[in-house]
């Protein structure tokens, strides 16, 4: 696990010094994170990375996990899907059970923190404890709130509105709430296996392993095999361009083997690619971070032709590697790419093919896009910015004014 000082060569001493200045102001507070799982899932991943950094900066942080049985997590999974806009019914008795499990956890958890930082909907009703113990309460939403089902969001808002602040990861997730809402974008870790610099031998070895020709242009999309990532659209795009430019296509990603839809998509993608040996379909096992890193670094152009996207961290990863990226203007992607400046934003297969051909034919322009993209990620989407936002978030609980002199 890297230490804070390891990030100095990347972001500069000034950024690291400011983290220590901010942390100093948070030193008398205990921050208690509460979520529903200690392993797997995005929230656990974020906490596993952030907590050691916050502790190294001198902030007292702890992490508690709520308990629940299979019935509870089946209900919260339904909630999760409903918040993503899936049309399904959650019954009154299911909501009552959800609240009962939250109440049981309210009794069991030792609320030792000065700031209780609750993540995602599963433990949202712990806020009922607020009337007894006061403290400052934060609720962080890590999921897409663009088109939630009304009845479930109305139910959750009864609880969300009791917190002191809510945190969302994209502007479009904001709602008309009675409490302040903070925007904290996700981040990538430049020193993780997926993003750290690799020796060229490692990259070459991985290209060899997948039988990819390092001497011809490589166009890559990294994503799980899912209709929303439009892998068939990527193949159609490539085929339009291949008539004019001799290039290769890599579609690489993982996916749960017990996900019937994922396997169906993979099958369709393989069928669409069957007549072209320059299309490489790579179904990667979990823990393939180094392979993904190498494929991104070796690519000439990266595509992210998603039809829907949360934040789109694969775009940030590609931009961080200085790669020219052509991506759909959906979800959090426009936050990362300014069209024709730090990448290309597109809306169709034809548009994507047009720009792909242009960037393959104009490597100097493509290179400039990649450089600007890397700078944007460096300034706004690395883990150091994420830590700074968390520290500011904690402090914001104690100040209402727009300008705060600390």
């Amino acid at each position, binding site marked *: 696990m890297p230490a804070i000082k390891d990030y100095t060569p990347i972001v500069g001493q*000034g950024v690291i010094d400011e983290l220590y200045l901010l942390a100093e102001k948070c030193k008398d507070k205990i921050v208690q994170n509460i979520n529903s799982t200690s392993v797997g899932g995005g929230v656990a991943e974020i906490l596993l990375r952030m907590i050691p950094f916050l502790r190294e900066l001198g902030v007292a942080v702890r992490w508690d996990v709520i308990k629940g049985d299979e019935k509870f997590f089946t209900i919260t999974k339904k909630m999760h899907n409903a918040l993503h806009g899936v049309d399904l019914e959650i019954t009154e008795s299911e909501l009552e059970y959800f609240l009962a499990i939250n109440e049981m956890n309210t009794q069991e958890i030792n609320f030792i923190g000065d700031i209780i930082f609750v993540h995602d909907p599963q433990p949202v009703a712990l806020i009922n404890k607020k009337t007894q113990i006061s403290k400052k309460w934060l609720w962080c939403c890590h999921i897409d709130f663009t088109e939630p089902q009304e009845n479930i969001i109305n139910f959750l808002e009864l609880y969300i509105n009791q917190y002191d602040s809510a945190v969302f990861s994209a*502007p479009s997730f904001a709602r008309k709430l009675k409490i302040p809402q*903070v925007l904290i974008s996700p981040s990538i870790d430049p020193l993780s296996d997926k993003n750290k610099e690799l020796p060229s031998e490692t990259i070459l070895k991985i290209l060899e392993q997948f039988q990819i020709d390092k001497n011809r242009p490589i166009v890559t999309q990294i994503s799980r095999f899912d209709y929303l990532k439009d892998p068939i659209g990527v193949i159609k795009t490539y085929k339009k361009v291949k008539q004019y430019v001799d290039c290769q296509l890599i579609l690489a990603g993982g996916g749960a083997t017990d996900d019937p839809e994922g396997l169906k998509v993979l099958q369709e993608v393989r069928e669409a690619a069957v007549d072209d040996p320059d299309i490489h379909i790579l179904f990667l096992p979990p823990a393939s971070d180094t392979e993904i890193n190498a494929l991104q670094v070796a690519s000439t152009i990266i595509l992210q032709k998603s039809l829907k996207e949360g934040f789109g961290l694969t775009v940030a990863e590609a931009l961080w590697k200085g790669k020219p990226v052509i991506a759909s*203007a959906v979800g959090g992607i426009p936050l990362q790419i*300014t069209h024709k*400046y730090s990448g290309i934003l597109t809306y169709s297969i034809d548009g994507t093919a047009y720009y792909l051909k242009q960037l393959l034919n104009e490597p100097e322009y493509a290179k400039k896009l990649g450089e600007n993209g890397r700078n944007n990620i460096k300034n706004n989407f690395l883990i150091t910015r994420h830590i700074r936002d968390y520290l500011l978030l904690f402090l*914001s609980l104690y100040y209402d004014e727009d300008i*705060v002199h600390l």
Partner: protein
Amino acid sequence: MPTPFYFKTGLRLIQLLGIRAKNLQELLDGIETLPLSSIYYHTHRLLYQQLALYPEPPNDFAYWINQSLNIKELGEAMASVNIARFRYVQELRNQFINILNDYIENENPMTIAPEGQEFHFMKCQTFILPTPFVADNIDEFIVALKRVSINALYFHLIESRLRLQNGVNDFSCWLRNIGEEKAAIEIERLDPYTITLEGLRRKLIVIISKYACH
């Protein structure tokens, strides 16, 4: 004995207001009614987030009008508002209101942003912190100027002048206090909205170094 210059830094937390606009009238309504910290955020975000020159309109309003409503003439009018000449955010707000009002009255635009491309109003809360850097004289000032973070530069040159309503950037103010009127004026003449912050740092060092030697 003149007061030393205490370098500070400003760090911003972005707040979502939960209000969105899908056409020009709704944009105007937001600009008229939302807090000044929202106007400040949408006109300065690109400066401190990019920390580099940007080819797009320098404020979110102009960018959205251009990109999502595709009204180029109005986008250009909003983009060309010279933020450097305003001393108060309220004046800046009034300028945007006038431009939008004129356009809406004359053109009666019906354009609606495509779904998913609405304008989301936000604001920022700025936290101002002392840094360890202090200067008693010009030589020490230059040494510190080379080392402070880009956020500190942004705070003293831009945020302090406009948002804290000091009217003048902090560097010019201090230089004037120590009798360096010419240096103060030269720095006031810099347009921080058309130079990158690292570029500004280099220019500041050149300007102030001239006066350190005399």
